[in-house]
């Protein structure tokens, strides 16, 4: 609502608001001064003289505006302010510090206009100065913070570059390791197969006088089996990795895949009287490469059977759930359990084994972990010795 111009002013004694212009100039809540175009001071108000501590006659016609400033401000004003003022006719909001007669400093904001005479010749410069002591502190704090933020930003960028370089290095190392594992498994396989064949032939044809020979032959055969197991473990790692590189991720329906893996384990499952309970209602599919998903299920399910608690029928419950935007796949068994206090750090390392009394290669959990990481997920494990283990695999949406 704008007041109607025709409406009479409210009843006020306007004499109270009539200012004496001279007094307003002298005692305005800001500093005023006027200079010649070259900066020579010609007029200052009482407020400004009070701030500076100078008598009028000490400044008028004797000093220039720039001389009231600290040396830094003077440099700035002479090189930047004056050109602006004389060419554009005004400067605004220049931040300077006045030097008082007693040497102390007063932060001010300076604005000025150039007044020209009728034929355009510069006549006088009118200057307004505002005391900004408090504001200056705040601004300097802002500037400090800004400088700090810029410094931190630079540090972050540097750290980021280092991380990127390290990451590239790790990727190269990883690729080298994969190719080493492939070469090792491939090159070892042939001579070990030869040894196995030779040993079989050797057992068949040779006779031993030493009564302990039979035991040693058995130990040799066992050692051979271990080497073969290790090599086939390595080969599996390489194979899964290669498959992952070749096969694209897709939404893999879990129910049929799990049933297929359970069927492939049927001989062991039947022997142990094992029971699988599958429930994928909450999340029926997972986005990953199919061979990876298959290897993951196979290793988790076969572990559950292999490390069953003696004297107890294995029960394996496999289910999915939603946790926020993630999908959780849980494989819960009632087997021997793992001593997590001791083994948690090594759980997913290649060739690490936690149940030496049970045959195994130490590859399964390593592979599962690797597959989950490659799908962008993570694994949590809960276990109680003698009661069972639950693997929870978290996959991002």
């Amino acid at each position, binding site marked *: 609502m704008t007041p109607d111009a025709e409406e009479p002013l409210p009843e006020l004694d306007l004499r109270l608001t009539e200012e004496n212009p001279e007094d307003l100039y002298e005692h305005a809540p800001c500093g005023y001064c006027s200079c*010649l*175009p*070259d*900066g*020579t001071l010609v007029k200052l108000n009482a407020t400004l003289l009070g701030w500076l501590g100078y008598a009028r006659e000490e400044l008028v016609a004797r000093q*220039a505006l*720039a*001389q009231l400033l*600290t*040396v*830094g*401000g*003077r*440099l*700035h004003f*002479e*090189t*930047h302010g*004056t*050109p*602006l003022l*004389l*060419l*554009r006719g005004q400067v*605004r*909001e*220049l*931040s*300077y*510090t006045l030097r008082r007669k007693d040497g102390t400093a007063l932060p001010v904001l300076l604005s000025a206009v150039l007044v020209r005479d009728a034929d355009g010749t510069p006549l006088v410069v009118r200057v307004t100065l505002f005391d900004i002591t408090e504001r*200056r502190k705040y*601004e*300097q704090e802002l*500037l400090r913070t800004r400088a700090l933020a810029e410094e931190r930003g630079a540090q972050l960028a540097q750290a980021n570059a280092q991380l990127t370089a390290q990451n590239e290095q790790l990727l190269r190392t990883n690729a080298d390791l994969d190719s080493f594992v492939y070469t090792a498994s491939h090159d070892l396989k042939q001579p070990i197969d030869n040894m196995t064949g030779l040993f079989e032939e050797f057992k068949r044809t040779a006779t031993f006088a030493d009564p302990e020979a039979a035991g040693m032959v058995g130990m040799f055969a066992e050692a051979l089996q271990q080497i073969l197991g290790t090599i086939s473990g390595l080969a599996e790692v390489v194979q899964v990795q290669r498959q992952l590189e070749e096969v694209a991720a897709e939404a893999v329906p879990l129910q049929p895949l799990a049933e297929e893996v359970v069927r492939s384990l049927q001989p062991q499952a039947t022997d142990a009287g094992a029971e699988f309970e599958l429930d994928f209602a909450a999340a029926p599919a997972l986005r990953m490469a199919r061979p990876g998903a298959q290897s993951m299920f196979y290793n988790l399910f076969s572990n559950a059977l292999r490390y069953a608690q003696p004297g107890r029928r294995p029960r394996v419950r496999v289910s999915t759930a939603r946790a926020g935007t993630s999908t959780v796949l849980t494989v819960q068994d009632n087997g021997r359990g793992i001593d997590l206090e001791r083994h948690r750090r090594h759980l997913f390392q290649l060739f690490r084994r936690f149940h030496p009394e049970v045959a195994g290669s130490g590859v399964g959990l390593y592979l599962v972990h690797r597959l989950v990481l490659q799908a962008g997920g993570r694994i949590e494990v809960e276990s109680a010795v003698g009661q069972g283990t639950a693997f929870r695999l978290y996959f991002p949406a």
Partner: protein
Amino acid sequence: MTALERNNVTVSGAGPGAQTVVFVHGFGCDQQMWRLMAPAFEEHYQVVLLDLVGAGGSDLVAYDPTRYATLDAHAADVLAVLEALELRGVVLVGHSVGATIGVLAAAQEPARVARLVLVAPTPRFLNDDGYIGGFEPADLEELFGALDDNYLTWAADLAPVVMGYPDRPALAAELTRSFCRTDPVIARHFARVTFWSDHRADLARVRTPTLILQSARDALVPLAVGTYLNQHLRGSQLLVLNTLGHCPHLSAPQITTTAIEQFLPSPVG
């Protein structure tokens, strides 16, 4: 980018064949600081104006702090502009640090500069064992404080100019508002290069006839500096103008113009 684009060169006044006057601005502004004086020369001379790289409409991207760590790079830029315009024997008018840049250019390629006019020049701002430059290092640190205090003012209107949208109708207005504004980071660096420079030793390399124009009361340059320059620049003449302040070409353009005209050879080429 050519030297002419890089330094935002403008050529005006009398056509080719006329004596050329090249104006080099100082710290804190750009070629517009010659606006009150340059028109007086346009009738008889070809007038060349330029922005030092980092200032005004120059190519800010070209401001590589390593290259511009000394004033010699700016002198090389000025010479590159003269080469691009195929100019020799020009009159070079430099203000403040622009005057030092002129000295360096004339020493480097004497054939390109026939006369030097140094407006409020100083070969060194800092006092030094017997030499009175007028400033102590602490004073100059204060200047950086003043630059920082005015950081926001300096930076406020800068972005549109830096980004340069030639098709934007508001550009003219933006340019007006950006008058004599400088990227705060560049301003800081150029200030350091300018106010810490010491080119006293280069004065002896100059063979060019030189006019030293000094302001009688210059807050930045003590009178003794004019005398020092006069003594060390062979064949120079010192003229102390009865003016106040560091920018006589702005505060007293008429007096400054007359002094330069009297020093110049006859404009008829």
